[in-house]
C-alpha cells in the first residue's frame, strides 16, 4: 500500500516537471525559425518528453492494476479507425526496415460493427504495444493485423478456460453473484456474463514473420520485465509492455495468447479478444458461424477457413457494396503494387465481389498489355477483348502461401466463355515503384489512347517517400491500403457506369494524412500533439475568401500582381491601387456612394477589409491609415486594415498599432496567416 502511494506522489512530481519542460519547449518554438537546426532539436526534445510521459504512465498503470484500482474509460470510438491509425504509424516505421504492415479486415465484420463504446486509449495501447514488439523483432517479411467480430453471447466466446478465474479475481465484488458458475460447463455459459455487459466480442491477431518466441518462454513473456533474450543482438525495450497488455485485455473481459503458427512459418502471432459495447443497430449479419473460428492451433486466415465463412465474407461485402449501389459487373482491375499481404487482401475482397484482378510487377508489362488490348479492340469490332482474371488461378492456389503469381501474357488474352464485357478498367498503382516521370508518361498514355476504348479510373498509392508532385489521377490514397481506403475505392467504383463516355476526371481527392511523417515513435498519450501535414488543400477549403471584397494597396508591381492573384484564387474580389493617396480617395468615394442612398440605419462600406502596404511613395501606409480613420469616423464605421510589412521587428508592430491598423502581416502574404487575422478581427 505504501509503495503505491509513494509511486503516485513521485509520479505526480515527475509529471509536473515534464509538463514544465514541455511548456518551455512550446515557448521556444515561438522565437525560433521553423527550418532551423534549433527547431529540429526542439522537436526531438519534445518526443523525448512524450516518451518519458508514456513510460511514466505505463509504470503507474501497472501499479494501479496490481492494486486492483484500474478503471476503464468509456468513450464512443470507431474500432476500424483506431486500428488504421495505429497501423499507419507503424507502417512508416516498418517501411524503413522494408517490412509490410497492413490490416486485414478478414470477413469485414469489423467494418460493419465499428462504432463502439469502450476504452479507446487502452485499446490503442494494447495494439501499439503488440505492433511495436512485432516491428522490433521482425527484420523481413510482414506484420498483419487481423480483426473480426462475433456476438458476445455465442457459446465459444472463451479463448481459454483460465480466463474465468483471473477475471473474477479482478472484479471480486461483481463476481460474487456468479460464483456458482465457475465451472466451465458451456450449457450454462449463457447465464454467465463473461464480460462487462458488452455486446460484441472483438478478436484481434498481430501476426509477424520475425524471430518468434520459443514455446517454453511463452508463459513468462507476459510477466512484466521479462524479455526473451534468445539472440545475441540485444534488442532494446523495457519489457513492460506485454504485462500491461495482458492486464488491460483481461480488464476488458478477454485474454491474450500466443497462437501456434503453421509448421514452417516463422514469427509470432498474438491473439487477443476484448468485449466492447456496440453503438450500432445490430443485425444478424454480424454473427459468424463459430465452428471454424474456434481456438485452434492455426491462426485465422481465409485459406484455411471453411466455405461457410467464405460465404460470410462475400455476403458482408455484398452488403457493403450493394448498399452503396455499386454495380461491379464488367470491372477489371489492373494492379501494380508491392506487398504480398496487400495483394492477398485485395484479391480476397475484390475477387469476392466478382472483379477480375490482374497483378503486374513492372510498368513495361502494363504498357504491353494495354497496347495489345487496344490493338485487339480496334481489330475485332464484334467481340470485346477480355482480361482473364486471377480469380480462377487463385482458387487453386488458395492453400499456397505464396503471393498470387503474375500472369503470363497469354492468359490475359484467353477469350473467356462468358459474355461479360469488360468495359471498365480500374488501375491501382503504387507510385513508389518507378519514378515520377514514368508514371506521368503512363498516365498520359492512358489519357490519350485507352480513353477511347474503355472507361477507366486511376488510383495512386503514395507514402511519405514518394515525391510530392501529385500526378493527375482519380484518387490518391496513402499507403498502407486498408480499412477506410478500401472503402474509398468502393465509392470510386460506384462512378463506373454512372456517366457514359466520361473522360478521366483530373481532380485530386487527397486523403489528409493523420500524422506527420516526421514522427518516429508514436506518443501513447498525445496523438494530437503533432499537427497533421496537409499535402494539398482540402477541396472544400479551396475558396476560403469567397464573397469577400478586398482593397489592396501596394506599390511594387510584382507584389501587387502576386497578392492579387492569391486573393482571386481564394475566391475574393480584389481592387488594387498603388499608393496610400489613391487608397484614401477610393475609400472616400466608396463611402460617399454607398451611404448616400441609405436612409439611416447601418452604414456600410463596400470592402470587407483593406490590405495596406506600409512603405509607399506619395503617401505611405501609416499616413493613409490615419486619414482613413478620420474619414470613417463620420460614418461610424471601423474598416479592418491589415498592414503588410517586410519587417518582423517589434517596433514595427508598435508603429502599426499607433497608426490605427488592426493587424500586421508579413510579406509575402500567406493565405493561412490572412485567414487567422480575419478570424481574430471578426471575433472582436
Amino acid at each position, binding site marked *: 500500500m505504501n509503495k503505491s502511494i509513494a509511486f503516485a506522489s513521485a509520479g505526480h512530481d515527475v509529471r509536473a516537471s515534464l509538463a514544465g519542460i514541455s511548456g518551455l519547449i512550446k515557448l521556444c518554438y515561438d522565437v525560433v525559425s521553423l527550418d532551423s537546426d534549433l527547431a529540429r532539436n526542439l522537436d526531438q526534445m519534445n518526443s523525448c518528453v512524450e516518451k518519458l510521459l508514456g513510460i511514466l504512465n505505463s509504470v503507474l498503470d501497472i501499479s494501479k492494476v496490481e492494486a486492483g484500482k484500474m478503471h476503464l474509460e468509456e468513450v464512443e470510438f470507431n474500432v476500424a479507425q483506431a486500428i488504421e491509425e495505429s497501423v499507419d504509424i507503424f507502417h512508416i516505421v516498418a517501411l524503413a526496415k522494408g517490412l509490410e504492415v497492413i490490416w486485414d479486415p478478414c470477413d469485414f465484420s469489423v467494418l460493419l460493427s465499428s462504432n463502439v463504446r469502450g476504452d479507446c486509449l487502452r485499446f490503442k495501447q494494447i495494439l501499439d504495444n503488440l505492433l511495436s514488439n512485432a516491428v522490433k523483432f521482425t527484420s523481413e517479411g510482414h506484420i498483419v493485423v487481423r480483426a473480426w467480430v462475433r456476438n458476445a453471447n455465442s457459446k465459444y466466446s472463451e479463448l481459454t478456460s483460465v480466463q474465468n478465474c483471473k477475471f473474477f479475481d479482478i472484479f471480486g465484488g461483481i463476481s460474487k453473484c456468479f460464483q456458482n458458475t465457475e465451472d466451465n460447463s458451456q450449457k450454462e455459459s449463457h447465464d454467465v456474463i463473461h464480460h462487462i455487459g458488452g455486446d460484441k466480442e472483438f478478436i484481434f491477431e498481430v501476426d509477424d514473420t520475425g524471430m518468434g518466441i520459443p514455446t517454453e518462454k511463452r508463459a513468462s513473456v507476459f510477466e512484466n520485465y521479462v524479455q526473451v533474450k534468445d539472440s545475441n543482438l540485444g534488442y532494446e525495450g523495457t519489457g513492460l509492455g506485454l504485462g500491461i497488455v495482458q492486464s488491460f485485455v483481461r480488464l476488458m473481459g478477454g485474454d491474450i495468447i500466443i497462437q501456434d503458427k503453421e509448421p514452417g512459418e516463422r514469427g509470432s502471432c498474438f491473439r487477443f479478444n476484448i468485449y466492447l459495447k456496440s453503438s450500432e443497430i445490430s443485425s444478424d449479419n454480424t454473427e459468424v458461424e463459430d465452428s471454424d473460428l474456434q481456438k485452434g492451433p492455426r491462426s485465422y486466415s481465409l485459406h484455411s477457413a471453411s466455405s461457410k465463412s467464405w460465404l460470410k465474407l462475400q455476403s458482408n461485402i455484398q452488403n457493403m457494396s450493394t448498399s452503396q449501389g455499386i454495380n461491379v459487373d464488367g470491372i477489371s482491375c489492373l494492379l501494380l503494387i508491392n506487398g504480398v499481404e496487400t495483394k492477398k487482401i485485395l484479391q480476397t475482397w475484390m475477387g469476392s465481389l466478382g472483379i477480375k484482378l490482374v497483378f503486374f510487377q513492372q510498368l513495361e508489362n502494363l504498357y504491353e498489355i494495354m497496347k495489345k488490348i487496344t490493338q485487339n479492340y480496334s481489330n475485332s469490332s464484334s467481340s470485346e477483348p477480355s482480361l482473364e482474371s486471377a480469380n480462377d488461378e487463385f482458387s487453386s492456389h488458395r492453400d499456397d502461401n505464396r503471393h498470387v503469381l503474375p500472369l503470363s501474357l497469354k492468359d490475359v488474352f484467353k477469350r473467356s466463355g462468358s459474355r461479360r464485357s469488360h468495359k471498365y478498367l480500374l488501375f491501382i498503382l503504387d507510385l513508389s515503384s518507378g519514378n*515520377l*516521370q514514368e508514371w506521368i508518361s503512363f498516365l*498520359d498514355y492512358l489519357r490519350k489512347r485507352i480513353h477511347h476504348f474503355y472507361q477507366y479510373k486511376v488510383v495512386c498509392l503514395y507514402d511519405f517517400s514518394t515525391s510530392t508532385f501529385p500526378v493527375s489521377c482519380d484518387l490518391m490514397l496513402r499507403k498502407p491500403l486498408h480499412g477506410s481506403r478500401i472503402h474509398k475505392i468502393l465509392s470510386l467504383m460506384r462512378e463506373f457506369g454512372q456517366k457514359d463516355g466520361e473522360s478521366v476526371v483530373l481532380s485530386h481527392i487527397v486523403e489528409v494524412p493523420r500524422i506527420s511523417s516526421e514522427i518516429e515513435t508514436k506518443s501513447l498519450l498525445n496523438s494530437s500533439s503533432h499537427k497533421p501535414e496537409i499535402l494539398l488543400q482540402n477541396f472544400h477549403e479551396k475558396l476560403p475568401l469567397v464573397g469577400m471584397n478586398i482593397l489592396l494597396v501596394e506599390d511594387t508591381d*510584382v507584389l501587387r500582381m502576386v497578392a492579387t*492573384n492569391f486573393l482571386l484564387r481564394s475566391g475574393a474580389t480584389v481592387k488594387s491601387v498603388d499608393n496610400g493617396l489613391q487608397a484614401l480617395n477610393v475609400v472616400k468615394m466608396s463611402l460617399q456612394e454607398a451611404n448616400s442612398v441609405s436612409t439611416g440605419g447601418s452604414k456600410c462600406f463596400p470592402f470587407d477589409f483593406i490590405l495596406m502596404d506600409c512603405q509607399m511613395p506619395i503617401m505611405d501606409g501609416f499616413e493613409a491609415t490615419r486619414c482613413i480613420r478620420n474619414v470613417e469616423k463620420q460614418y461610424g464605421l471601423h474598416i479592418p486594415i491589415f498592414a503588410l510589412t517586410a519587417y518582423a521587428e517589434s517596433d514595427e508592430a508598435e508603429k502599426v498599432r499607433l497608426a490605427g491598423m488592426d493587424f500586421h502581416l508579413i*510579406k509575402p502574404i500567406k493565405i493561412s496567416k490572412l485567414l487567422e487575422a480575419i478570424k481574430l478581427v471578426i471575433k472582436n
Partner: protein
Amino acid sequence: MAVFQLQQQWVDLISALFREEFLDSQFTQLQQLQDESNPDFVVEVVTLFFEDSERLLNDLCSTLHQRVVDFKKADAHVHQLKGSSASIGAQRVKNVCVSFRNCCEEGNLEGCLACLQQVKHEYTLLKSKLEALFALEQQIVAAGGSLPTM
C-alpha cells in the same frame, strides 16, 4: 527530343533550383496559382520581376555613384527589390538584399557597392536559369507533353 526526356530535364532543373536555394517555397506557391484559367501566370510574374529588378538595379547603380550618396534613397530601392524577390521566391537575391540594407543603414559605401555587385550576379544567374526553365516548358508543351501539375 522525346517529351519524356524534356520532362526529365525540367524536373532536374527545377529540383536543382530548389536544392541550390535559388528558389524557395514561395515559388511553389506561385506554381500552384497557375492553372488552365491562368496558364502563364508564373511566366508573367517572373517577367514583371525581371523588368522591375533591372530598373531598380540601374537606379541603384546611379544612386550609389552620385557625388553625394543618398543612402535613404538606395535603401528604398533595395527594400523594393527585397520585397519583389521575396514574393517570387528568389531566395538568394533576397538574402543579398538583407545585407545590402544593412550597409545602407550604416552608410557604408564600399559595402553597398560590393552588395550591388553581388546582387547583380545573383540576379543574372537566376534570370538565365529561369529563362532556360521557361524555354523547356515551351518545348514540352509544343511537343504535346504536359508539366507535372502542382
